[in-house]
């Protein structure tokens, strides 16, 4: 019979008795409760329940309001029609124009867009998809209506120093609001036509256009891309107590995507209501607005590619509140407005997020090349028969709110306006395209290279106690900040100031400087991070600044993007860099691109911390620096010493660019072995892009990336003691950017270079370094640069790791075989030509 030995209780009694910290430990999981029998009950989800007539609504809307709704829908309709004509016939109103770029049109969906935007103001942010022209215009028009003339003038004259304002106001006679409408149409159209005078200097285009002064945040060409980014924006508003809500306008087919589900998981975390405190307690101010046009490109969501039947059903599977989900008839603008009025109240009560399934339909194909082979003509016609603009217009005239003549005149005016804006936007002199060759314009926008002590001044950071009182800070103050004593003997690991302490100091310092800074990831709070970097921060910070995210790497990074876009600094953590694949789109397609795609309007102060494993096998021990170094728009660094880690983290947190910050699990506990005066207690930065000569030498240069540095230090001992060869060791520290000057100088001196790191050799950044050194220092080389990386295998188990990762003797062998023979040396590894050829032939 199995006895019940008393299992050790991993949790010792609480040492931290501060009142304000309520830990999940306080949420005792009672087996008696959990094992009780019961049933889950669901509430009915309303579908198309709105049934008011225009007459009913006349007490909620003035006539002008109702006419405005018609007007806004007609503006969108004409705009999209114009683009459709250009794409299909090559001309609009007899004026020829060729637009080769994308144009995903939303003809038929106007009511949904206008209804969505009606209740929103400039504090409310919308994020969109590739099909969001209607939403941009609707939100813009709504904002124009709500802003005063003075405010509008200010927006227009200040945007890009009034470039667009000057274009649209020429020969303009009309009100400020009418000018603002022209401004909105022109800025959007010029952007679609890739003109430098567009809202994003032509760098965003149709699928990424946005205009933040009106609360229009970026659209996303990646399906579902806004699904987690919008959550981050909502998080920003909540954490920084900003007014307004966030709407994610995504499609029905995007409900299959990871980022959307991860975004929903993140947005509906219990902790917002169970653990976050004070003002911060409560749900995110977020509406996930499914613009359900019932097709995902060509796939029919209901009936073919999805299983929910009615997308609002999804809410029921997520949380007790069923995300307040509803299906709304998006063909009736008043139904949508009604829904928004009700859901806004829900958000104001901090009961969000909300899921709205807005039913609509598009007559236009997915794209101009869409032959609509996936639906019948009859179906399209059936929906056209119920066209929302026509229907609404008829309702207005029937109710006597507007005559047909009035409406027709309105539409005429809209068409004229659109045509005027069109002519301006296609004029190469008035609306030129940027010259990428000149002054390296695009290159200059890839990174903002800003320097900010804090992203938001005039606000004090929320902290629980002064930094000096923090237990970890006190603990660190007793540590030795240089690893060796005056006799050169190393202090014990516990006494040494470690690399993780350097990271802690930089991050803690910034938490106390920048009120917008928040950090999250898996096991960040309480546990203090899987590698104890954050130990002590739990005591220092309230929940809303340091919390545990779900195991959803896509959302961890995606929310950080939205958070940063809105003006906050954020440190998301991916526990193992091996998990970068889980946040692939966010890291490769989103984070690096927004600064440039926005014409540098948007900054991206995100420091994505990832760590490189060891001893954890094939899926937990890879060095993926090369993957991120390949993607333009990211800064990448990999410090290997406490001094470098603190300096680079400070620089990363001071900057405005996205940084992928690599740390190695091998060396979180390493002491400072190189800087004799020890790691400074005060603030200092190490600029990005500067490698560091750690050891000077004469005979060979060894350039290393990351934790491999310490194996290089072993190798140089062998070179010195056995072969009388003095090696110069350069620690790369950064990968992107990278300044070659010191490396070239070294190669001029030694003529020989080995480049090493833990990344698998093939396709690695190490080869990039080698190639550049060859080109820049060819005449000084005594042998081509030799790359020593990991084998192109899976990382084997801990016990076999030394066959996989570069070892000290590999470096010596490589020098012996490929650079200069070492007397008496017997190689153990094969670095010869035929072995290199063989491996490449085999693809390993």
């Amino acid at each position: 019979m199995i006895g019940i030995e008393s299992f050790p209780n991993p949790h010792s009694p609480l040492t931290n008795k501060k009142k304000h910290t309520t830990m999940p430990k306080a949420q005792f999981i009672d087996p008696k409760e959990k094992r009780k029998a019961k049933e889950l009950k669901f509430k009915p989800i309303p579908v198309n329940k709105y049934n008011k007539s225009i007459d009913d609504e006349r007490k909620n809307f003035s006539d002008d309001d109702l006419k405005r709704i018609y007007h806004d829908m007609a503006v969108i309709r004409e705009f999209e029609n114009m683009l459709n004509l250009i794409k299909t016939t090559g001309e609009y109103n007899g004026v020829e124009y060729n637009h080769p770029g994308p144009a995903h049109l939303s003809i038929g969906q106007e009511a949904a867009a206008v209804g969505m935007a009606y209740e929103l103001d400039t504090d409310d942010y919308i994020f969109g998809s590739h099909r969001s022209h209607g939403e941009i215009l609707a939100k813009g028009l709504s904002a124009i209506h709500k802003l005063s003339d003075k405010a509008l003038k200010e927006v227009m004259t200040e945007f890009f120093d009034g470039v667009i304002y000057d274009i649209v106001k020429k020969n303009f006679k009309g009100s400020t609001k009418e000018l603002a409408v022209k401004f909105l149409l022109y800025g959007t159209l010029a952007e679609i036509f890739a003109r430098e005078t567009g809202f994003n200097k032509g760098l965003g285009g149709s699928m990424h256009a946005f205009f933040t002064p009106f609360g229009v945040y970026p659209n996303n060409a990646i399906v579902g891309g806004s699904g987690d980014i919008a959550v981050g924006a909502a998080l920003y508003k909540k954490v920084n107590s900003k007014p307004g809500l966030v709407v994610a306008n995504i499609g029905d087919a995007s409900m299959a995507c990871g980022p959307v589900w991860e975004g929903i998981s993140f947005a509906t975390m219990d902790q917002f209501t169970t653990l976050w405190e004070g003002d911060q307690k409560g749900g995110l101010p977020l509406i996930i607005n499914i613009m359900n046009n019932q097709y995902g490109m060509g796939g029919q969501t209901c009936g073919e590619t999805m299983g929910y039947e009615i997308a609002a059903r999804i809410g029921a599977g997520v949380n007790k509140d069923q995300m307040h989900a509803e299906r709304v008839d998006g063909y009736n603008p008043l139904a949508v407005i009604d829904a928004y009025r009700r859901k806004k109240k829900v958000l104001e009560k901090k009961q969000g997020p909300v899921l709205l399934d807005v039913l609509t339909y598009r007559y236009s194909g997915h794209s101009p090349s869409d032959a609509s082979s996936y639906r019948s003509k009859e179906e399209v016609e059936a929906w056209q028969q119920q066209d929302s603009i026509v229907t609404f217009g008829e309702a207005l005239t029937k109710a006597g709110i507007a005559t047909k003549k009035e409406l027709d005149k309105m539409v005429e005016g809209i068409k004229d306006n659109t045509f005027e804006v069109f002519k301006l936007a296609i004029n190469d002199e008035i609306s030129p395209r940027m010259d990428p060759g000149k002054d390296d314009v695009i290159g200059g926008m890839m990174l903002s290279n800003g320097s900010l002590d804090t992203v938001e001044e005039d606000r004090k950071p929320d902290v629980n106690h002064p930094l000096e009182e923090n237990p970890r800070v006190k603990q660190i103050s007793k540590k030795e900040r240089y690893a060796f004593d005056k006799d050169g003997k190393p202090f014990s690991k516990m006494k040494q100031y470690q690399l993780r302490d350097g990271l802690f100091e930089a991050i803690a310092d910034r938490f106390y400087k920048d009120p917008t800074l928040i950090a999250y990831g898996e096991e960040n709070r309480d546990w203090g991070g899987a590698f104890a970097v954050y130990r002590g921060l739990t005591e220092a910070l309230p929940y809303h600044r340091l919390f545990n995210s779900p195991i959803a790497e896509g959302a961890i990074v995606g929310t950080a993007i939205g958070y940063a876009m809105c003006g906050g600094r954020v440190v998301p953590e991916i526990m193992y860099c091996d998990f970068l694949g889980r946040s692939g789109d966010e890291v490769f397609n989103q984070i690096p691109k927004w600064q440039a795609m926005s014409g540098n309007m948007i900054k991206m102060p995100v420091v994505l911390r990832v760590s490189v494993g060891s001893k954890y096998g094939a899926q937990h021990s890879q060095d993926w620096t090369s993957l991120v170094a390949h993607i333009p728009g990211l800064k990448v660094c990999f410090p290997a010493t406490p001094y470098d880690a603190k300096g680079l983290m400070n620089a990363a947190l001071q900057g405005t660019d996205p940084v992928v910050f690599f740390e190695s699990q091998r060396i979180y506990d390493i002491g400072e072995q190189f800087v004799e005066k020890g790691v400074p207690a005060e603030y200092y930065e190490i600029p990005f892009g500067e490698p560091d000569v750690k050891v000077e030498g004469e005979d060979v240069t060894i350039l290393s990336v990351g934790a491999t540095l310490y194996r290089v230090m072993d190798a140089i001992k062998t070179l010195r003691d056995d072969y009388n060869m003095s090696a110069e060791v350069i620690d790369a520290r950064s990968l992107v950017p990278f300044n070659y000057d010191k490396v070239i100088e070294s190669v001029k001196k030694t003529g020989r270079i080995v480049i090493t790191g833990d990344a698998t050799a093939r396709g690695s950044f190490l080869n990039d370094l080698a190639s550049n050194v060859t080109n820049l220092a060819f005449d000084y080389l005594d042998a081509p640069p030799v790359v020593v990386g990991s084998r192109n295998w899976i990382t084997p188990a801990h016990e076999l790791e030394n066959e996989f990762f570069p070892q000290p003797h590999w470096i010596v062998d490589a020098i012996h075989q490929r650079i200069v023979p070492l007397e008496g040396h017997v190689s153990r590894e094969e670095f010869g030509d035929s072995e290199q050829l063989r491996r490449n032939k085999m693809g390993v």
Partner: protein
Amino acid sequence: MAHPILLPRQGQSVESCIITEFYVKPGDKVEPDTPLFSYETDKASFEEEAKESGTLLTWFFEEGDEVPVLTNVGVIGEEGESIDEFRPENATALGSGGDSGEAALSDDIDASVSGDRSADADINVASGEANPEKGAKNVSSIKTAPAASAGAKIAAGTPSAVGEGQSTAASGATSQNEQGKLFISPRARKLAEAKHINIYRVQGTGPNGRIIEADIRKAMEHEPSMVDNATGAQIQAAEKAVVQQQAYQYPDPSNAIYDNDSKNVPLTNMRKRIANAMHVSLQNSAQLTHHLGADARRILELRQQVKAKQNEGYEHNITLNDMVCTAVIRTLKKHQNANAHFLGDSTRVFQKVHLGFAVDTDRGLMVPTVKNADDLAIEGLSSQMKSLANACKKGSVNPDLLAPTEASFTVSNLGNYGVEMFTPVINLPQVAILGVNTILPRPKDLGNGTYGFVPTMGLSLTYDHRALDGGEATRFLKAIATEIENLEINI
């Protein structure tokens, strides 16, 4: 008792020679002075003769092999005696005593190369001597394989047969692959240019036989660096040009009627060297020739006097050339600028006259030097020049005397062949060379409107205009002529 046949060391700097031809084969009987084989350095060729009687038992090498000096080339003894104890490690012929000839070269090379290494058979390791002092820059401790210890077979351009997968050098070959291209790192090449090291003579110890910086530094220690002008690089460039000149295509030489129309004859080392020197001289100087006639009646008269004395038992055959050379030497003492070397940024003016003179031999042109010729009387000059000429023809001249830097001035006499005028090529770095032509009758004004035919010797002075101007050269040449016309000698 069997005795080994040693390859002698000819000259201080010679480290290896090429065996050109064996005159006897195993089984042949030899006596003292029987010619055994011929061999050449890059400066001269020689013959080795037997020192004792016996039977030639074996050769350890083949014609065309490059062999380090002081290596056993073969064995002479009684038939049946063992030869194994004499076989050198780097023998390329099996040396079985028969005419096996067909040595398995690759096997031998691998065996010889890896045999004396203690290392892993997979990896070729450079062997080497003891570590030179640490003070030397950079690669003082990196060992490179000296030529002497790795005697793999080298024909010009033959690859060193290193086993599969072996990427290190220490093959002992010159660093050439099959196409005859040189493997050298950019850094090493730069250093060699700066230090005037001839890369075609450097052994490469880097991967694939690549010449690396350490190899150049080693060569710098052994070779006295060239005179600090462009000469070193020039010679390098010239040698490279020679190697590269095999660009001409010839149609298939065989045809039905005439059989082989032409055939390729590889250059001997001497030919290569002469080709280089001539080409370099013409490419890299500003030389031109002045022609001037000297009245030869005086020296003809002196020659008659010598002949008369010879009939009385006088031993020295003082020739016209000896007289001309004497005149030249005396004139050089008064025209020091012509007794000099041009060094690019300076000239080296000699106090003593070291006279070089051209000797035509079967193997090619040689120019030995009479050192301190201005100390010699004409008899001494005559006998020295004669013995040097003989030594050249026999192949036994001291190679150190053949270097162009040894002479301060050169004389080239083609008078015997009837040449009337020519443009001799300067022996760089010397600033001039005197060509001596045949004696022809030329009309001369004998005074008072009378003209007669007078024996006139043509003198062709080629000088380097970088060092000497036309006026100076002309005065020098005229002074030689005057000296010849008024020569006084003690016989």
